[in-house]
């Protein structure tokens, strides 16, 4: 039993739903009680989808347990087939049905339906959502393509010289992070080097599209969390190589192009610095100097976390002070990455642990999921969202990819905006005793309502202040001398909480009971970079 307040991932059948909801012509019958129908709202409300996910639930109740739940499965399968006319039918069970062992997959297969019926094993008490998506996509592709696997030792035909290389984009799903726009951006990127996208799956694919997968020259594993198993199988069975670099960030996008070039046997040099790629120059621009060494804590799915770390370190000049993931299946990638940046990896699906680590690290920027956005808000730390689990805000109306050169532009804006701007930071430091600059002052353009009715939207200010109260715990025995308290007030409000904490930590480590002005500056020197 695991005590859980918030979860990063749903159960594995939610992953299966993400795959079928991405596709057309596929239907899933889930053996599950009525409460499990909540899952529809993830798609219709969070992603604002205008259609229900193609899922029927058996919604069995207590009175049916043991007697006719099997009959219920067959009726549901029959009804779903009649009504929705899917070209492939998937059958799975959610957590409760797993316990009653009706074998819905076998029941459905025994009905002699005129379409492929695939049975999903989704161990609800051992696995989670991303695994479920990965497994479902794999079972679908394997289920449809198995009869077409060439005999061992037969190599795929070489590409005719007059045909452009073809790539499949595998892994984008409903409820993924910016999948819709990433697919568009990567399609453009590949087109810029003369590669055609053949099949995108699961997002927008039909069962017939899945059958066309082997016609491409290679696969792009765009989201390893959902597609690595499928790519591996296609590589083994159809000899299709996999492009493994995920093109998030300038460096990764160039590496991605190099990998495509190698596999497709084409020259990609000209595509590596398009004119629309503004991010590298923005980062070199003098105003970005203030970004240097900003301390960043990253927690996300493995792919986005690892990509974000590289961008932070190599493309924005930040310092990665912490990195972690909730995706245990991909923990190895994050561990390796953590080693590269000399930090301790955090592999957990307990958000309280993440919050604890963030409070310890006191980063200047957090990059995470919607959960980290809440943690950061609580701790008064600027934050940008880089990965699922998603929220309605993560489906912007505008084009906002994460991948490719445009993705890097978008990321530059998204990560830099929450931070205090360079000149602004200097001004506040220089004039921190200015009567209009103190933290309780109303912005001068809002008139003279000083001290009362703080305008709405001064969220940063509010949260920074709540973080400014003395920390309890170990530091409780430490006292602040009056002058030190005064001096602390001269520090701009948005870093004051951190200064207070650092000083108290320093005092605790040094065994200092009373914090003086001296201690404050000693601590500053100690923690200063």
């Amino acid at each position: 039993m695991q005590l859980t307040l918030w979860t990063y991932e749903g159960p594995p059948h939610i992953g299966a739903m993400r795959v079928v909801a991405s596709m057309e012509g596929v239907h899933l019958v889930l053996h599950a009680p009525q409460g499990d129908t909540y899952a529809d709202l993830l798609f219709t409300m969070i992603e604002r989808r205008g259609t229900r996910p193609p899922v029927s639930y058996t919604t069995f109740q207590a009175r049916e347990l043991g007697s006719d739940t099997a009959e219920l499965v067959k009726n549901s399968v029959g009804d779903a087939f009649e009504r929705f006319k899917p070209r492939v039918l998937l059958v799975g069970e959610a957590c409760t049905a797993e316990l009653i062992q009706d074998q819905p997959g076998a029941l459905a297969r025994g009905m002699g339906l005129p379409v492929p019926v695939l049975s999903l094993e989704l161990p609800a008490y051992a696995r989670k959502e991303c695994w479920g998506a990965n497994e479902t996509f794999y079972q679908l592709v394997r289920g449809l393509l198995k009869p077409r696997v060439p005999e061992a030792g037969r190599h795929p035909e070489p590409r005719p010289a007059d045909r452009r290389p073809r790539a499949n984009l595998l892994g984008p799903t409903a409820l993924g992070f910016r999948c819709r726009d990433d697919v568009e951006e990567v399609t453009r990127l590949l087109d810029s080097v003369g590669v055609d996208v053949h099949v995108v799956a699961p997002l927008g694919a039909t069962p017939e599209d899945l059958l066309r997968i082997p016609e491409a020259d290679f696969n792009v594993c765009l989201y390893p969390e959902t597609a690595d198993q499928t790519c591996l199988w296609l590589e083994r069975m159809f000899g299709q190589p996999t492009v493994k670099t995920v093109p998030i960030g300038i460096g990764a996008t160039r590496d991605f192009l190099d990998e495509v070039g190698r596999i497709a046997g084409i020259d990609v040099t000209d595509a590596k610095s398009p004119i629309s790629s503004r991010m590298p120059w923005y980062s070199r621009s003098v105003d970005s100097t203030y970004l240097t060494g900003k301390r960043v804590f990253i927690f996300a799915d493995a792919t986005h976390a690892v990509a974000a770390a590289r961008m932070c370190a190599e493309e924005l000049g930040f310092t990665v002070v912490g990195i972690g993931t909730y995706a245990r299946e991909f923990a190895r990638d994050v561990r390796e990455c953590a080693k590269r940046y000399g930090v301790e990896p955090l592999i957990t699906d307990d958000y309280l642990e993440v919050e604890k680590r963030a409070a310890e690290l006191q980063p200047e920027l957090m990059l995470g999921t919607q959960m980290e956005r809440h943690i950061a808000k609580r701790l008064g730390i600027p934050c940008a969202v880089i990965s699922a689990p998603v929220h309605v805000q993560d489906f912007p109306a505008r084009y906002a990819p994460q991948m490719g050169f445009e993705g890097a532009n978008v990321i530059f804006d998204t990560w830099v905006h929450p931070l205090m701007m360079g000149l602004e930071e200097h001004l506040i430091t220089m004039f921190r005793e200015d009567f209009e600059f103190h933290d309780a002052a109303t912005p001068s353009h809002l008139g003279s309502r000083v001290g009362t009715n703080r305008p709405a939207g001064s969220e940063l200010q509010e949260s920074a202040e709540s973080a400014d109260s003395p920390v309890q715990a170990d530091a409780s025995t430490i006292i602040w001398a009056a002058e030190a308290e005064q001096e602390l007030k001269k520090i701009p409000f948005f870093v004051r909480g951190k200064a207070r904490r650092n000083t108290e930590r320093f005092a605790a480590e040094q065994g200092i009971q009373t914090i003086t002005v001296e201690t404050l500056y000693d601590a500053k020197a100690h923690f200063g970079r």
Partner: protein
Amino acid sequence: MSGQQTPDRGSTVGDMLPTVTRERGQRQVFCGLAGIVWLHRKIQDAFFLVIGSRTCAHLLQSAAGVMIFAEPRFATAILHERDLAGLADCNAELDRVVAEVLERRPDIGTLFLVGSCPSEVIKLDLAKAAERLSAVYSGRVRILDYSASGLETTFTQGEDACLKALVPELPELPGGERSLLVLGTLPDVVEDQFARLFTELGIGPVHFLPPRRTTEFPPLGSGTKVLLAQPFLGETARACEARGASLLSAPYPFGIEGTLGWLRAATEAWGVAEEVLDVVTAPAIARAQRGLAHHRESLEGKRISFLPDSQLEIPLARFLQRECGMDLVEVGTPFLDRRLMTEELHLLPEGVRLTEGQDLERQLDRLREDRPDLTVCGLGLANPLESEGLRTKWSIELVFTPVHGFDQAADLAELFARPLRRAALLRV
């Protein structure tokens, strides 16, 4: 009452109750766990620990709509493979998790162990666990249990199960004394309004269940008159009756008519003169009429369908038809407790299409054929129906928003008027 009702509408013909069509098939509705989302806000010293699967945790998180900023007073003890292997270990694990929760939250006065579909199926005895743990934490934390499993409870029935679990904890009302007990979670602001009205009417003492804190349990006994503020509390009402209380039959306090009828049930039980009721309620009724008039313009003559969901459908349909002039196309309800709905059913218009239970796809077929101006449904269906050109109102807002009583009558009407007004405004 308000003089707004038209004679040709809502005429009650003796005992001619509407006929009910029963449906069975796929349901699209939350399980009882969803009730935790509002119950944990109401009972401020309670913690709800669901013993269930990752699905339960995910449902709670998703039903809450937003992740709540503060650390919530609910959590899930997620069952893993090894918990399923042996119940003995499962109980030991539960004890460990409870200790962890209570260590984190020393401010908790009552801990609810909440059963789920998986815990029911593996027959984890939470009543026994609550007993065992009560002995361990006796004097410090009260530990109770109830089941909100989707195998047995539908959406708001979770509140019924929770409140029923509180009934044995209520102290005995001394013989010869009487009191009014209002059942059902009400927002504090509404509870306070009702408390003021009851005081002005000379009715008292009045208690509310659930209380804001579990240190303030109301007494219960043969002198207790029970008045239901929510129409889904049949089990709790029966448990109160088993302890000698009597249930007042009344419509539910939605709209002017419902609120007045609800208060009248209490005044009659207390022997308060009808004139007193008229005088006390007159100002609030006048305010409500002014407020309603505005929304009646948007709602009058508009056709509405209710999908079975919150169990509030029948009283709300009655309010919208009789006080806002809407036409009822279909009123679906997850289940129909005839005893609790007696007063309401009499107020529904003759020939209304009333359905109990659900067969989702067939219901949607009817809806597409009917094409009502407004459909009340769950969150999963709202956007898909909107994209088919139907206007919708999410039902979950009806349990999260203050909608009871005179002073909220206009707010209640506005919840239905807003989607229609918005649709009229948009040119995109």
